[in-house]
């Protein structure tokens, strides 16, 4: 029995590995300079990373942050400022590290202040405020941030889409591995305990604040990395672009859609939502925002806890229907 279980776990890993290898090989059989699929994957990887970062603090730990765009924007600004100052270069690992660390530090500072004092909705509102403060600060940052004009970067440095694709893939895999390790460890248990009952967790000797800040900071770190990559991609860092609420709203949507607090949730949610958005803007260019809104409303109405929970709760039914359809289809073919 034990062996069987282990084997199943192995198949899961193998399936995951196959998917990763598929992603790694993609640019080899597709021209990444002309393939929309590569670009689509690149953006989805970024969204998955941010969504997983948010999942860690909101899904697993239960502290709903609405300030992820602050970390994203900070990462982008650090990359832009250090590059402009000549401290780092194009696709400089140091710049990524600095951006991530900057976001991490901001999260730690914000965390110490907000997480110790605020709970639930108050924390959400507080983080939203942090993001907006950062936006206004960037707007009024004088020559340091170039205010509303933003920082223009040297766009002639662009070489190949592959750089972006592989960096995004790497950042996403890094995030996924970190989260798997974290969730499988004692820390993960502690985080879930905090989500379920904070008082009980603290009564059981879990240093609640420390773990919350840890989760918040790790989420911020990976979000900062994404911000940095986006700065290199867009070559123009300005407040309405990198500090837009889009960078918190879309990943949060993906995460909730997939199922917050599950590992596969954000990944599934990101793919489903990206594909839905893409297809609607191709098929119904005139009314695609209406569809996006309706899509979100319908999903929350019928799967309020996310696709993953829906699947786990209805798996026998889904399987039965799936088998039936496949069966019918085969019969028809025959």
């Amino acid at each position, binding site marked *: 029995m034990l062996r069987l279980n282990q084997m199943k776990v192995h198949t899961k890993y193998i399936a995951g590995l196959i998917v990763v290898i598929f992603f790694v090989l993609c640019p080899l059989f597709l021209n990444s300079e002309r393939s929309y*699929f590569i670009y689509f994957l690149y953006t989805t990887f970024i969204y998955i990373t941010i969504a997983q970062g948010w999942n860690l603090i909101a899904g697993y730990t239960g502290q709903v942050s609405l300030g992820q765009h602050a970390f994203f924007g900070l990462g982008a600004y650090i990359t832009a400022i250090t590059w402009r100052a000549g401290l780092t270069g194009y696709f400089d690992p140091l710049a990524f590290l600095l951006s991530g660390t900057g976001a991490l530090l901001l999260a730690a500072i914000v965390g110490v202040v907000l997480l110790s004092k605020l709970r639930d909705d108050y924390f959400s509102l507080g983080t939203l405020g942090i993001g907006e403060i950062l936006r206004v600060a960037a707007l009024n940052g004088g020559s340091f941030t170039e205010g509303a004009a933003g920082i223009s970067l040297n766009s002639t440095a662009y070489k190949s889409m592959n750089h972006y694709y592989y960096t995004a893939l790497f950042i996403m895999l890094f995030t996924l591995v970190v989260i798997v390790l974290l969730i499988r460890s004692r820390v993960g248990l502690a985080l879930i305990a905090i989500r379920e009952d904070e008082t009980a967790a603290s009564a059981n000797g879990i240093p609640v604040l420390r773990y919350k800040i840890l989760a918040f900071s790790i989420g911020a770190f990976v979000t900062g990395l994404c911000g940095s990559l986006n700065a290199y991609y867009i070559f123009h860092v300005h407040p*309405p672009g990198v500090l837009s609420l889009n960078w918190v709203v879309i990943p949060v949507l993906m995460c909730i859609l997939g199922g917050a607090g599950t590992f596969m949730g954000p990944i599934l949610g990101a793919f489903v939502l990206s594909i839905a958005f893409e297809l609607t803007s191709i098929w119904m260019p005139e009314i695609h925002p209406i569809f996006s809104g309706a899509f979100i409303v319908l999903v929350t109405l019928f799967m309020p806890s996310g696709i993953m929970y829906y699947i786990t709760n209805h798996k026998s039914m889904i399987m039965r229907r799936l088998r039936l359809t496949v069966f019918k289809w085969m019969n028809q073919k025959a």
Partner: protein
Amino acid sequence: MKQRSILYRITIRCLFILFIGFLITGCSKGRGKEIIIGSHLPLSGPGGLVGLEQKWAYDQAVKDINDAGGIYVKEYDAKVPVRLIAIDDESDSGKAAAAVERLIKKDGVELILSGSNGAMGVLPGMITAEKYKVYYHGTLIWLETFLEHKFKNCSLYNFDMGQVIPMCFEVWNSLPKDQRPKRPAIFVEDSFDGKMMGDALTMFAKKFKYNVVLHQSMGLGAKDFTTQVIKAKSANADGIICLANTPETVTLVRQLKENDVSFKVFQGFKGTWPTEFYKSLGKDADYILCDGFWSEDYPFKGAKEIGQRFFDKYEKHSTSVGLYYALCQILFQAIEKAGSTDPVKVRQAITDNEFNTVNGKVKYDGRGVALYTSGNFQWMNGKQQNIYPFNLAKYKIKAAPPWKKR
């Protein structure tokens, strides 16, 4: 555990099916006997008002050329019809880059007509087009920004900063001396455009020996401007140059009137040209100036007609559709002269030739830049009267009387 892994496999399978579907849609590039031109426009989001006018003008230009049988392309030795693919960039810089990626990679577009909205649309579009060496036929972005990025595959047909800014003061100087404002205030919105404009205005005001008494920023989407109004009152400003969106400008004018702060000249940018501005304010909008890219009163071929067509459709006048129409005319003529739809050849044809448009003759320089003279208009009884450029304008600016004397 067993069921979970089945579930997992199913999920992966579903994703694979979707991927493959995507690969297919992603790779299929319609290559018929037509010229595909792409464009990304702010059809939704805060820039929607501009985007729809722009799309209308593009559509008209494409319709007109197709009615004439298309563009003669030497490579095909035939007249080829044009197809425009205009997609929404939601007035967002990230989405604009994504839109251009999609145009290039999904639709296989190699010629792109300009988006709108400067740093929020055109700039990310140009940067993306440049990456894949696709020709971007641009407008509505600051010359400095354009040059800063050293674009090789883009061109710019835009108004001239070095002309627009002095234009404000030249117009002021055309007033009789006793009616001229002496203490101008500058109100600019908190955006890329606002920043560039504010700095340039302050610089040129000095050149024209105007002493700027107040330089204020206006928050994007702000709902109250009493602070700025009170400051203008205490600084005793008598002329104003204001760059902001329409809702903000309307609120500002209403508050100016409520507080009885009168300006001899109210020069508006961006927010004052839409007809909705006049509808919102009625008579109070009289005497206010607005910039405009173009006027249907210009004596160029087709100008009157395109203005009339716009009026027939929307029952309002536009000071911008001519620019967009002209932009298309330039591109179509360039394709014909290049005899090809190859982006490099088209770009070459752009810089080599001179073009006739509803906005006059256009000649690009070696950097791929052509500048035109921006117009200036004054609202009077619901109509925008063209007051600048002086050589084309039939109307002369009037200084605004104080609110109480209207």
